[in-house]
């Protein structure tokens, strides 16, 4: 036995060069290509689990859980639009494209969202009849690529979302690999079949906030000022971005944290660009409050929202609504253990599968393969999504009532404490059991 083995109980793994890191080095050396994948940041980040609610007791008066009303509805786009969007619940479906998802999956999102009175969002690649047909409230994304963009669909939309970036890749463009560019996808995007579709990272006809202000007016003119216009940003310099978005004329601002998913981009982008959702919300709210626009320009937050507690915490920090993408896909059936054998064949496992760009999704959701698509039933998928959205709402209501609030939007930062110094600093709420908000009042 070597001297080393004699004194060590087991080989020591490097924290710096851990197994994942080593595997990545080997993969890069083998292939010469950076890793592309879907989903959002997988690293551990300060998140909503690091916050707790202070339920009512002596100093606060709770509402009866099953008897007293707790409003969940919200109206978006009250600043300029003639027809703001009224949602029954404050949980919306984030933009996911037809192309990244199958037409059936898009249909299911529409079915599920409509059943509970909320909205869905198109994505890069245009509006499909399946989604428009099933979504009673549909937000039409206006992206740099303008794939499939046309004034007829623009006028069919219930709102327009000008996308500047997304949490998974702020500063990056979209990507849809050739495997998913079928004849229908290619036609909608005016591309040759089978090419890797590269979406530009910035808009082709404006460059800064002053230009954007004119662009937004153009969209309002084309739609006769009927529908709300959202601006979506990936969370980075959120305080400044939100101020500029208000100046540019947004009715609604969508802030997407780095846990927010994507159909496909470089892993290095997903894990190393942007800030956590938790850190972005207080910045956005501060910007709106300083401009006197909080609640006048509505704030939608997305990026890693999984349950009703996350919804309630976003609202308590000042959001008017949230958006879910990854969680909605899971509700539809993505990464379901029933497909474990097939996930294994793809070198993954249920719960970890993120090669959505390859178009081989065993669940038939993030694919354009006709055989795989048949596995997914849009009616059943819609029912599952509606169930999930109802649970999110009930959970958020439960927490709000416990804090004595008869409206989800009455939740406030004062209802929250943090479990860690980091989350206290980011969320700007006190560390549990203290009055300490790191960074506040210069301490």
């Amino acid at each position, binding site marked *: 036995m070597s001297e080393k083995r004699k004194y060590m109980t087991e080989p020591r793994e490097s924290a710096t060069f851990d197994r994942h890191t080593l595997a990545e080095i080997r993969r890069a050396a083998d292939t010469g290509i950076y890793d592309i994948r879907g989903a959002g940041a997988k690293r551990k980040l300060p998140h909503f689990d690091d916050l707790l609610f202070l339920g009512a007791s002596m100093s606060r008066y709770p509402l009866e859980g099953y008897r007293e009303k707790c409003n969940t509805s919200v109206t978006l786009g009250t600043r300029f639009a003639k027809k703001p969007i009224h949602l029954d619940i404050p949980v919306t479906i984030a933009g996911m494209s037809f192309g990244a998802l199958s037409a059936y999956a898009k249909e299911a999102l529409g079915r599920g969202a409509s059943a509970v009175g909320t909205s869905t969002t198109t994505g890069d690649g245009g509006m499909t009849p399946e989604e428009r047909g099933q979504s009673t409230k549909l937000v039409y994304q206006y992206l740099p690529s303008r794939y499939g*963009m046309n*004034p007829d669909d623009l006028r069919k939309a219930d709102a327009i979302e000008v996308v500047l970036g997304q949490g998974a890749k702020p500063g990056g463009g979209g990507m849809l690999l050739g495997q998913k560019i079928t004849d229908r996808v290619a036609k909608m995007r005016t591309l040759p079949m*089978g090419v890797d579709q*590269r979406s530009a990272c910035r808009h*082709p006809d404006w460059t800064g906030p002053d230009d954007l202000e004119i662009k937004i007016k*153009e969209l309002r*003119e*084309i739609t006769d000022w009927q529908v709300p216009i959202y601006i979506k940003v990936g969370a980075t310099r959120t305080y400044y971005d939100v101020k500029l978005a208000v100046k540019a004329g947004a009715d609604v601002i969508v802030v997407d944290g780095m846990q927010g998913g994507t159909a496909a981009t470089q892993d290095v982008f997903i894990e190393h660009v942007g800030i956590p959702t938790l850190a972005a919300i207080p910045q956005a709210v501060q910007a709106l409050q300083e401009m006197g626009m909080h609640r006048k320009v509505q704030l939608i937050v997305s990026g890693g929202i999984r349950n009703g507690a996350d919804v309630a915490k976003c609202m308590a920090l000042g959001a008017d609504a949230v958006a879910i993408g990854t969680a909605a896909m899971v509700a539809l059936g993505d990464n379901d253990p029933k497909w474990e054998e097939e996930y294994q064949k793809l070198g993954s496992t249920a719960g970890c599968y993120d090669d959505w760009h390859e178009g081989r999704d065993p669940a038939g959701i993030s694919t354009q393969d006709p055989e795989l698509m048949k596995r997914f039933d849009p009616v059943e998928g819609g029912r599952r999504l509606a169930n999930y959205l109802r649970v999110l709402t009930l959970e958020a209501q439960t927490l709000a009532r416990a804090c004595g609030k008869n409206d989800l939007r009455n939740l406030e930062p004062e209802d929250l404490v943090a479990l860690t110094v980091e989350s206290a600093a980011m969320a700007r709420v006190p560390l549990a059991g203290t009055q300490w908000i790191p960074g506040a009042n210069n301490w």
Partner: protein
Amino acid sequence: MTTNNLAEKSATENGVYDLAVQSVRELNQALHDQRHQLTCTEWKVLNPKGQHNIAVGVDKKLTIDIQGHAGYYCAGMNKEADITVHGHAGQGVAENMMSGTVRVKGNASSSAGATAHGGLLIIEGDAGSRCGISMKGVDIVVKGSVGHMSCFMGQAGILAVCGDAGDALGDSLYEAHIYVKGSVKSLGADCIEKEMRPEHIEELTALFERAGVTDQDPKDFKRYGSARQLYNFKVDNAAAY
């Protein structure tokens, strides 16, 4: 009926809008209303004075003469209408046009015809940078020169430049066709010069005919297109990405 209402009725019926006294909003609404009830097919816009978003979202076979300079996004998302700017046009003229014709008698700023899906854009002067960026089926004729990054990621349609082209012409090009008579400062990634075959002469001849260009000989032009080497990611091309 108030005096203002009378004025508006009159403008809608005779198709003359004076932007010195009426708003772009009023003009655009009147143009959009033509989709439902056609009151006039010949429109004149007076005193545009560089205002933005003039005649955007038109969806009817109308003739619209803009008597002066237009600001950003003039004729944006146009469908069917024939729109003429009797002056210069700002950024994004005819952006995302679907059909119809837009003619700029003067120069156009950057991103002319950006992402346009169809129709014909004629710029009688020069165009700035990114002319025809991400074009998706529009045909563009520039009688002067175009700036850098023109036809960037051009997907479909024709860009014909009778003057010179700036740096990085046709960068990351898909299937748009580019013809340039003069010099090209540099070609962008994956854009190459291609042989000018008879069918291309024919294509350009037909385009000039549609555009009313009578002083150009298609034989004087060179053709540029995609080398299609970047269509699918290959690590050997990493330097080009």
